[in-house]
């Protein structure tokens, strides 16, 4: 049993094995997400980042191993209990039926409400605050099917922010977004993790965003091989070149470190 003097990680993964058909995504993965940590999940295309995220969210079963959420085994929790603590932004959000943006964001409150009860004014305020944070307040009465790709992405984020989970899994949160909105969203997520002791775990394609917004990274090399650790220790030329199977150079100035693809002139 957990007690308050000994804190436990928000999400604790032991000996996890995940595979798609015969292809291994991770073998014997050990992972602990502590409050205040922002994890980046890096790996080449098709290595199974989305599959791993779905497994961590409990909507896909693992071959082996256990996942504990707030010190409770996840496979023994109801979906509702999980959704109160853990949220996930999927890669593509499609809205089947028309609803306005406020109603869509409000669906994030679903796990927190009783099955037979309605939303309160407090729930609505949370949804409005999330829309405001993501710069969608002026669209709250607009239908969610009439949004641009970037606006849809931000609406999906507003929904998970309204859900307000301790552990937030994000599958490429910056998809479809221009640089300004990428920064806005990552800053917003970063503040959330730092100021209110949450944890997040996000699949990213942009290494340079990972250097700015991740305290830790998990790298997936394929065939079940993985490395996890502090971002500062793992994000270097050797590791990244091995990870992506191409030459990656580091460029440094006084302000920051940038990783770039080495062109043909730089073997």
């Amino acid at each position, binding site marked *: 049993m957990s007690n308050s003097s000994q804190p436990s990680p928000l999400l604790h993964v032991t000996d996890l094995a995940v595979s798609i058909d015969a292809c291994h995504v991770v073998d014997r993965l050990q992972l602990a997400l502590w409050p205040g940590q922002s994890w980046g999940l890096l790996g080449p295309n098709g290595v199974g980042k989305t599959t791993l995220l779905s497994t961590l969210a409990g909507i896909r079963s693992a071959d082996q191993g256990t996942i504990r959420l707030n010190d409770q085994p996840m496979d023994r929790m109801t979906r509702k209990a999980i*959704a109160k603590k853990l949220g*996930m932004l999927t890669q593509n959000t499609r809205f089947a039926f028309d*609803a306005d943006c406020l109603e869509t964001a409000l669906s994030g409150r679903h796990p927190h*409400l009783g*099955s*037979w009860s*309605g939303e309160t004014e407090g729930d609505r305020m949370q949804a409005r605050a999330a829309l405001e944070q993501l710069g969608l307040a002026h669209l709250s009465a607009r239908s969610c099917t009439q949004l641009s790709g970037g606006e849809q992405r931000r609406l999906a984020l507003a929904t998970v922010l309204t859900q307000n989970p301790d552990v937030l899994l994000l599958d490429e949160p910056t998809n479809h977004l221009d640089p300004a909105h990428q920064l806005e969203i990552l800053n917003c997520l970063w503040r959330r993790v730092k100021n209110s002791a949450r944890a997040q775990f996000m699949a990213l394609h942009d290494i340079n965003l990972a250097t700015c917004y991740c305290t830790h990274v998990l790298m997936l090399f394929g065939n079940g091989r993985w490395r996890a650790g502090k971002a500062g220790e793992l994000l270097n030329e050797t590791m990244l070149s091995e990870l992506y199977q191409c030459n990656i150079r580091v460029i440094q100035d006084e302000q920051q470190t940038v990783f770039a693809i080495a062109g043909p002139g730089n073997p």
Partner: protein
Amino acid sequence: MPIPGAYRSWFLLALAILLGSSLLFSLAFGSSGWLWPLDPAHHTIVFELRWPRAVAAAITGGLLAIAGALMQVLLRNPLADPYVLGVSGGASAFVLTGFLLGLAWLPVPLLAFCGACISMAIVFVLGRGPGPWSSLRMLLTGVVIAAGWGAIITLLLALGPDRSLRGMLYWLMGDLSYAGLSAWWLLPMLGVTLILALRGRSLNIMTAGETQAALLGENTQRRHLELYLVASLLTALAVSIAGSIGFVGLVVPHLVRLIISNDHRWLIPASALFGASFLVLADTLARTVLSPRQLPVGVVTAIIGVVLFLILLYRSGRHVA
């Protein structure tokens, strides 16, 4: 553009008034012309013929509209409908087969429920298949199944005794001429509507898709099974009352969506009320338009439904492209 949320309860009230006036209209108007219901001279016609039939029409309409709305959630497709997907056909075919095999001692709704469940299972398994959702595959599966049941019913009618033929035709097209229900049946109907409306938030979440619904805390497998059983049961009850009446489950929720948005907490009660009024009016039309001859009400709903279905299909095709 749907009406603002604050006006939704007024819209429900308007629909309730519509249902009341439709019932009154169907009592007063018929093949014997206008009759004032409270005149004792007309008591027999009004209260023993028109009233039970109007109640049966209201209940059948409500059942079909709700069944349609639930199937649309289950299959995540606004074109789903008990008749189009062959669920009503399955229920009818089972009831008829049961009769011919001498199983008439079984309750009709039970036979209909088995048929509806089998039909739904076929559409659900084959029409979904692996991979992403395809409206086209689902509709094709449903339409083919419906045609198959239609053929079986025709065969059964051809094999059956001649004198019962006219009475049995309604399993194919839906007819309220032989139907009559006591007004007490409106109470369980009200109960079902209320329960589903209160669980409307879960229905809303289910329309976002299986993954999203699971992430927001719904036990999707259990919810699917519940939806599947309830939609089959409501269809089966409707078929037991009046045979397979088409397109009510498609037309009614669609029109209601346009006015009241897709929030199922409002959509379900509004569909039930509007579906009930729609079928009461359609049946009044069916028994008066060519009077003294009476048309099966399924003919009237099909004429309206087919046109709207084609418009919807055309518009959804453009959206996909």
